């Protein structure tokens, strides 16, 4: 299969890469850029924060990530209420160039699990305002369905808590989400290493989004590349169709011709 022609389409937009990456936690912008290039990702998430007005010597992330080359996906990270999430989404749109937003309404500081009731409420408001809302949600099939019903063109269920590196904790729920909703599924958060990304894709995810697994690795650039191949391998295996699991052996060498 030609991976270049296996494009992901969300709300009429074409995405070249099925690995999406965050831009946080890197040593500096140069490392961020190198890791993103190694990952092959064309979608990068960013946060919206106050400009440092006292030290203007600080470089801007967009000096390194040309918005013409990358799809900039702003998030509402750090928002714990519907009001804050909506406010940050609007600010992101005002600061940027598109209506895309990765919507997060966080429910709890310790787990960073989404507040799914708040998420649905905020998504409704933003969709009415013309946003393309990609919601960071729990691995809950009912919530995923509700998000799609109100107009989200994709859903982003977590694999595990943000930054935990635990991998896919509930593959069965993810599978149910994939069978329940007919929009692209982007597994977001909790991936630890390349095999986690491959597994997510093998289960049938349309893309995987990660940050810490790359930025926090001992060699972020090498891990970014590993993630690229993990996602490719998983996608290819999914499209190829794996063999069923069986309890007993099946010989792969013929019996005929044996002495």
């Amino acid at each position, binding site marked *: 299969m030609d991976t270049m022609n296996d494009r992901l389409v969300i709300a009429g937009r074409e995405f070249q890469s099925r690995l999406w*990456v*965050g*831009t*946080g*936690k*890197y040593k500096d*912008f140069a490392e*961020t850029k190198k890791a993103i290039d190694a990952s092959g990702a064309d979608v990068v*998430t*960013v*946060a*919206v*924060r*106050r*400009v440092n*007005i*006292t030290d*203007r010597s600080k470089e*801007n*992330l*967009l000096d390194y990530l040309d918005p013409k080359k990358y799809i*900039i996906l*702003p*998030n509402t*990270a*750090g928002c714990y209420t519907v009001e804050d999430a909506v406010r940050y989404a*609007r*600010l*992101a*749109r*005002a*600061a*940027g160039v598109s209506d895309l937003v*990765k919507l*997060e309404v*966080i429910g709890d500081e310790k787990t*960073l699990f989404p507040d799914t009731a708040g998420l649905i409420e905020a998504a409704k408001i933003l969709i009415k305002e013309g946003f393309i809302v990609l919601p*960071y949600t729990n691995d809950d099939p009912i919530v995923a369905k509700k998000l799609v019903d109100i107009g989200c063109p994709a859903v982003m269920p977590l694999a595990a808590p*943000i*930054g935990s590196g635990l991998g896919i904790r509930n593959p069965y729920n993810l599978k149910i989400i994939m069978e329940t909703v007919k929009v692209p599924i982007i597994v*977001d*958060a909790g991936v630890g290493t390349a095999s986690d990304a491959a597994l997510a894709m093998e289960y049938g995810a349309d893309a995987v*989004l*990660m*940050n*810490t697994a790359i*930025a926090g690795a001992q060699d972020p650039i090498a891990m970014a590349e590993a993630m690229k191949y993990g996602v490719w391998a998983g996608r290819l295996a999914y499209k190829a169709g794996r063999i069923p699991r069986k309890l007993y052996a099946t010989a792969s060498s013929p019996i005929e011709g044996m002495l």
Partner: protein
Amino acid sequence: MTIQVNGESRGIGDGHTVAALLRELDIRADRVAVELNLEILDRKDFETRGLREGDRVEILSFIGGGAE
């Protein structure tokens, strides 16, 4: 007159517009969102929108972030 910019007090000249403030701060207007007294401004209004004593201005832009 004195206004609040990103939570800090700042003296600016009378009749300053949002665009003039951004120039003074050496901030590129095409990379930021500006909120004036909780109202998010349209970028095309930066040149004409005047600032008044006590205004609260928030200037935000994209920074590195994944989730949370």
